[in-house]
């Protein structure tokens, strides 16, 4: 659901915003924090397309990195993600089925991904205590687990591969206990 409708919503907000007079630019900053955090990358993106090309860096294309999501069934999807965008937003913009119950506010653990290559995992900044607190509760935690909403595209991780953990079929009848890390 969220995937397509999610981005539709975002797109609608962006559209309203773009249609508003330029003077209202600062209004964006008064949006509630969560909404703001979610919308900003979208807005910046739409802005570069909507605005005059003169604003754009000539090497805009180079500012995108390649990311591959591997879903439950092993199916792969390669996408290009602008530097600065989170993997959760990138997934949603590209119809990749990654949950994001709290829309990136570090309160749900549903955006859990597993970095498939340890070298890439090591290139990421260490998770904060708050991210670790949510990872504690992630389903099917592994040594290279991270939250998709906390991984931000940067040139160092160009080529990163992220697995979306599969829910096991034999889901424990009396409550799921995460595996030890």
């Amino acid at each position, binding site marked *: *659901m*969220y995937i397509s*409708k*999610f981005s539709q919503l975002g797109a609608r907000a962006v559209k309203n915003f773009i249609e508003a007079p330029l003077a209202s630019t600062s209004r964006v900053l008064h949006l509630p924090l*969560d909404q703001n955090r979610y919308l900003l990358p979208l807005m910046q993106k739409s802005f570069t397309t909507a605005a005059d090309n003169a604003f754009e860096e000539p090497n805009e294309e180079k500012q995108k990195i390649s990311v591959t999501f591997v879903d439950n069934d092993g199916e792969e999807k390669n996408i290009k993600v602008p530097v600065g965008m989170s993997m959760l937003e990138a997934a949603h913009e590209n119809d990749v089925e990654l*949950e994001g*119950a*709290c*829309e990136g*506010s*570090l*309160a*749900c*653990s*549903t955006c859990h991904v597993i970095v498939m290559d340890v070298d890439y995992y090591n290139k990421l900044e260490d998770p904060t*205590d*708050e991210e*670790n*607190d*949510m990872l*504690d*509760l*992630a*389903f099917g*935690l592994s040594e290279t687990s991270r939250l998709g909403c906390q991984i931000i595209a940067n040139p160092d991780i160009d080529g990163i591969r992220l697995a979306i953990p599969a*829910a096991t*079929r*034999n*889901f*424990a*009848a*009396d*409550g*799921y206990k*995460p595996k*030890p*890390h």
Partner: protein
Amino acid sequence: MAMSIALKRLSRSFSTISSSNPLRVCVVGSGPAGFYTADKLLKKHERAEIDIIDRLPTPFGLVRSGVAPDHPETKIVTNQFSRVVQNERCSFIGNVSLGSSISLSELCAIYDVVVLAYGAESDRVLGVPGEELAGIYSAREFVWWYNGHPDCSKLDPDLMSTDTAVILGQGNVALDVARILLRPTFELASTDIASHAVAALEKSCIRKVYLVGRRGPVQAACTAKELREVLGIKDLYVHIDEADLLKTPADEEELKNSRIHRRVYELLSKAASSGASHISGQRELHFVFFQKPDRFLESDDKSGYVSGVRFEKTIVKENTESGKQIAAGTGHFENIECGLVLKSIGYKSVPVDGLPFDHHKGIVPNVGGRVLSDASGDRMQFEKGLYVCGWLKRGPTGIIATNHHCAEETVASISEDVEKGVLIPMSSSQQKPGREGLLQLLDSRNVRFVSFGEWEKIDTAEKRRGMLKSKPREKLTTWRELLKIASE
């Protein structure tokens, strides 16, 4: 005729689409389990037409009535749930209670598939003397009270006759309740907490809260996030006895195998050794370990009221059968005086007529979400078309996300049964009536259901009222108000 009124409302409230051979599904309960189930079913089955019923006029289950008011980020998931109902093949039908508005057998006769996701709306009991004394509440009632659930808006717990509260249990619910009692009220006032609760908390005399666990800090049931939060409350003196932090070899082994417990234990150790001294006037939070409730003490001056809890000191040892570390009494007792007790030892599901139920575990017996009618023989026998999800299926543990995986499993079972052809009738004469049948039945019983559009009126009214008080919403907390706004 009365029926036509309902049918008129039906056509106004719902877009009626119908494929030639739909799979008619009723999900009972609009909490995370219900919504995740509906979402997954809609995606998997193009012919699924889903009605989510709930006994309340408001959707979202514990996300509205359980999740703490100072956790707005956690409630963002309701955006996602609302989008599920926007699908034209899905609708919300509130104010309809399974067991009183409609029976299970009636529901099963109307729908091809019934998924029970009605949670756990009762409490585990301790079974110790004095449990019925005034001043003792279950955490569920207290949480419903501060979250404005219409069944507990009149709870009115007395927070003024005592300065001490004892919370039994050390799970996340216990920590939520402790935080609400101890957090500065000006911080709570800008949340969606019920206004009757802020008013009572502003006048509260509770200065000291004991969080009592029957096992040790290694086994504490809470998670690091909630613990970090309660330890970080402004102007709070936290006491943990360092002697309680000593570990046995079995404890060491347990910590090695559990990341959550390791991180919780580390936080507790850090708090114990921080050595902060108690500044007078500061509120206090005492973590008490290795004490199990033995009886509640009745007040001498106020008959029928609780004045304290008697605990038996425990040691934790391994149960040879289960391999789990359990609390065993030592025969040493001590009392904690208090005027308020909140039992936070777990929720419990309640059965409805005709539903197989495991009273010991407090769940509906199931395999992968298929309801078992009989597991006694060699072959397992399932209830055709009847499934279960969420706390009713697994027991009252797990976060919102857990229900996502739980729904995935239940929906996989439904899909298998659809593929096997056991769920969709072959001929149209066998087709079940689905939503129309439900609404006719409700109408004949004068049950006034609440549609999603009507819930949106409640939502708008709450947000509008909230704006006047700089709150995200001011909840409507009585049945009368909720139903009144819904019909405006």
